[in-house]
């Protein structure tokens, strides 16, 4: 029933899960058999049936109070040990800052590099995520690693894991956060130690050789712009990019502006300064996430979408 276990702590969680499932199934089977057996064996035979007076049975009652009590204490202790392991990150853990925004995940690495909706981590090394939210409450959840933690707007929370195999795992937002809650997904890329080092070094420059339009397209996907802004005219949470550039836009205060370079730049860095009529002020700011050259590339890309 469980997804593949890809972290060091997952096995213990799974063991407890299977213990509770199997114990429950055995007990459920017993209870079900008793219900069916009693219903058949003691079925009413005549309207004058006389039943015995059995009001209580101390031995039996103590038994069925104490045995479940022992079982739940076992489960409690087991769950608690697993939980303590999940909350105490090793001191040498590699730290990554996570910022949740409606509706994307931003990952800040110690090299200063920022990736959106892509978490890159090394294998066989503890990774600690220090998380906060820019707006409402989100929850960071990687089923493959059996970790989850709410991401709050007014304080830092953290979680840690150590991936055991190279590959990809899905990240969900597990705390309802509005319209595109179910699109607030990310992918965890687990690299070998060397690949990870290499990724960190080249991540910032890997798209240098692309022309601005192709680079802009890549950035729009990578930074999850397309979660809310379509490129084919479909209306999502934000206005579509198609035909945007150069058009006259009506703002929610009635002002008419032409969507030129400055307007688009402002919309990326200070998205709530001016809101297109008919839309909600929900976009997070990309100041600090995108640099000027990247913004230029995105504008070049938008220009091509007629």
């Amino acid at each position, binding site marked *: 029933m469980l997804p593949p276990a890809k972290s060091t702590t997952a096995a213990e969680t799974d063991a407890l899960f299977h213990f*509770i499932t199997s114990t429950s199934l055995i007990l459920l089977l017993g209870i079900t058999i008793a219900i069916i057996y009693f219903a058949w064996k003691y079925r009413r035979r005549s309207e004058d049936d006389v039943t*015995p007076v059995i009001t209580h049975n101390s031995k039996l009652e103590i038994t069925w109070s104490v045995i479940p009590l022992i079982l739940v204490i076992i489960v409690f202790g087991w769950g608690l040990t697993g*939980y303590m392991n999940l909350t105490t990150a090793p001191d040498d853990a590699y730290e990554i800052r996570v910022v949740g925004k409606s509706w994307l995940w931003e990952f800040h690495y110690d090299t200063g590099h920022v990736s959106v909706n892509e978490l890159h981590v090394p294998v066989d090394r503890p990774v600690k995520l220090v998380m906060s939210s820019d707006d409402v409450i989100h929850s960071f959840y990687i089923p493959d690693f059996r970790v989850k933690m709410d991401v709050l707007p007014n304080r830092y929370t953290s979680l840690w894991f150590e991936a055991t195999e190279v590959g990809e795992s899905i990240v969900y937002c597990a705390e309802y956060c509005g319209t595109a809650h179910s699109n607030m997904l990310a992918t965890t890329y687990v690299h070998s130690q060397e690949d990870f080092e290499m990724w960190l070094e080249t991540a910032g420059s890997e798209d240098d050789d692309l022309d601005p339009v192709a680079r802009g397209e890549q950035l729009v996907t990578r930074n999850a712009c397309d979660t809310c802004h379509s490129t084919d005219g479909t209306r999502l949470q934000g206005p579509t990019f198609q035909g945007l550039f150069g058009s006259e836009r009506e703002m929610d205060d009635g002002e008419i502006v032409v969507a030129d370079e400055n307007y688009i730049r402002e919309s990326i860095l200070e998205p709530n300064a001016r809101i297109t009529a008919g839309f909600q002020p929900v976009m997070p700011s990309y100041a600090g996430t995108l640099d000027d050259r990247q913004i230029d590339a995105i504008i070049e890309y938008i220009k091509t979408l007629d």
Partner: protein
Amino acid sequence: MATNDESKNVRKLQVKRFKPEENPEKHYLNQEKGLWAWMTTVDHKKIGLMYLGSITFFFFIAGVLALLLRTELLTPARSFMDADMYNQVFTLHGAIMIFFFLVPSVPTVLGNFILPLQLGAKDVAFPRLNLASYYIYVVGALFTLFAIFTGGIDTGWTFYTPYSSSAAGGNIMAMTFGIFILGFSSILTGVNFLVTIHKMRSPGITWNKLPLNLWGLYATSIIQILATPVLAITLLLLTMERMLSIGIFDPAIGGDPVLYQHFFWFYSHPAVYIMIVPGFGIISEVISTFSRKVIFGYWAIALSSLAIAFIGFLVWGHHMFTAGQSSLANMVFSFLTFLVGIPTGIKIFNWLATMYKGSIDLKTPMIYALVFLFLFTIGGFTGIMLGALAVDIHLHDTYYVVAHFHYVMMGGMVMAFLAGLHYWWPKMFGKMYSEFWAKITCAIIFIGFNMTFLPQFVMGSQGMPRRYFNYIDQFQSFHQFSTIGAYIMGVGFLIMAAYMIHSLVKGKPASSNPWGSRALEWQTSSPVPLHNFEHTPVIINGPYDYHKPMSEFQLGITASQHAHHADKPVDISTQEKEQA
């Protein structure tokens, strides 16, 4: 009461036996006529029926919303509604089901109808207050409907801040204000029931002869009066947050959103027990009646309800294991959560032991009770799973949780409610329903229910988060299976509506005691006379004394006897006179 008065207060009661009148010409349904008489009635039975109408309406609405959700989830992306609409629909499904159906249903419908009957009282202690509670419920409901038609609400039924205080659109104020008002209906009903049980018992109904249904309602009322005010203040603060930006819960102004969660769950976890504990009471009545056997462990069942009510107040933090509260808090809440499992388990075993060596008649209410035992046990075990800290970290906010609480709420509470509704239906309307169709429907609902929610356990274990409009392709077959199950369940409820209406119109007349129960409410006519009993009943035998012959249960004293309380000792001498 002073001891020196006691000798004076002991009254000798001459008890005559009366047989209830069969198929009475005059009863509560036809003694006062006209719409106005209904709307202004202070009769607890009619108020119960008005509640039945209202909660059925809301169950229907919320049920339709559930089917819309399931239909949308047939495909991983948009099927026929957009994400905003989906978010509104699941919010309304949850809020309406919980606040307008699950919380009020058993106390206000079956509780109102049965509680005075089981006490031998003419009415609840404050009949006008009871009517007022109903209208407060209606006003709260109108606010909610107003909210739905003026922008709706998309926060989820939990109204978490800061999403609800700043980000979300729609008419949250009208919705929370409606639920705020509704809370007072719940509180006043609780006050009414507690006073009625304390002060309105007929002579002879001592605390150890109180039917377990009343112990259930008693525990429920305690939770209602203690927890609901906290919900009221929480929603008031939330309303103020949106109206005046007071900032207690909004981090943008300096407040703390997790504090809101503490406040909210301090009510909303006990609210789960408001929903399920009265169900326990019904199941005790039904199993004993249809096993025709004295209930096993009367005090164990009665006290475990109170224990659940009490511990239920201390476990709210298990809704916040991943919310960033301290490890110590998580540990304590996890431990206390497991403690609730013990009294719950005790009840299950006691009901099984009651069936042992009984004379079991598998009538519809009994089948629902057995379905309850099975489904509620699954709900309980999966609750243990979610109480285990390490596992909960993985399963929190996934479909596993969704499936778990549907097993508890729908598999537990709704099945208990249906058991009670079928059990007391003849008493309410004086008509029988089709036993054949009732059993078929029960089977359809049972199959549909399991088809709907079993796959959700699997999806949840694999990591499918709840409240998702889009989902990844691997879950599609589970979702489709689940949706088919939901349709089957919907068909089941439609058949139920059909045979219940048929019963009202053309049903066979019911005798005063069709199930051969020993409980007091069956010792009066069906339908019930306007003032419940022709004579103030005196109780000698307990409600589960199935070893005594039926003839001993036809009791009453002449109406001229007055001024006696259950609290004052009574010396009862029976006078063997049968009145035909």
